[in-house]
């Protein structure tokens, strides 16, 4: 870590370290934004702003990747909470709303595996993505999701079983 690289308000974070995990964080932001790349970019930018201003402070207790994933997860949650409350307000007042014309990225919908993952409950989908695609341990994934490790394990086991069952039904073989 070069000294000039370190963020003023976050002494344990460097620009180069963030650049190294940029692709993975974007993937996570993409899945948090229902595969809307514009929203994902916005989430990424907000996450970097939080790190630059010190609002999100990394204390080196976990890995930087886990920490940045948590920041993105929290930002996505608060974003959708805001949107939901605005929608409720619009519905209550009966006012119209401009249509969002951004086309979401379709993550290879033809793949049976992807469809199976998308059909999983939200928590199971998240832990599968974090452990299988983002190279996290169950403990790290649970931290990002804001659940205990025990709960993370339960979601992980259920997700694996559900996925194997769905894929076996579709003709794939997953013998232990």
């Amino acid at each position: 870590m070069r000294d000039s690289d370190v963020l003023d308000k976050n002494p344990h974070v460097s620009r180069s370290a963030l650049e190294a995990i940029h692709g993975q964080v974007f993937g996570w932001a993409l899945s948090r934004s229902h595969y809307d790349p514009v929203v994902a970019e916005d989430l990424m930018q907000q996450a970097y702003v939080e790190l630059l201003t010190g609002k999100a402070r990394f204390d080196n207790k976990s890995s930087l990747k886990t920490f940045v994933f948590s920041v993105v997860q929290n930002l996505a949650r608060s974003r959708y909470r805001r949107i939901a409350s605005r929608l409720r307000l619009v519905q209550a007042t009966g006012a119209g709303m401009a249509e969002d014309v951004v086309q979401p990225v379709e993550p290879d919908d033809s793949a049976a595996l992807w469809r199976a993952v998308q059909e999983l409950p939200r928590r199971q989908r998240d832990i599968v993505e974090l452990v299988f695609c983002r190279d996290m341990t169950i403990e790290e994934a649970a931290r990002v999701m804001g659940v205990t490790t025990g709960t993370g394990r339960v979601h992980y086991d259920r997700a694996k079983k559900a996925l194997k069952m769905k894929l076996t039904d579709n003709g794939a073989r997953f013998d232990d």
Partner: protein
Amino acid sequence: MTDSDTALQDELREAQARAERDHVPDFETIWTAATAQAGIVRRRQRLFAGSAAAAAVVAIAFGLLVSPEEEWRYIDADELLETTVWSAPSDSLLPDHQFDIYEDFPVLIESTETYGGPLL
């Protein structure tokens, strides 16, 4: 991880990579935008802190310069010491009544009789 887990992981990772490929934005672009936004946030925070500090200084200065002419008291010591008579607060529901602590209270304390009705 079992073999089946590994197979599942490989397949899933490939599907995910296919989904994200060509969509990862340039780090430099996002970082530059974030740095600019962080600068705006910091300037706003400094402005807010400066305004709050200025308001506090003005409030303290005002408090020091403008001292109250007379301190307001609930009990007037002179009034208490000059007389032995105390007038109960009264209104239409509570008729005027005056007590003299030397004349009325000894009777009230020593007597076993009722004092002829309510005290006030």
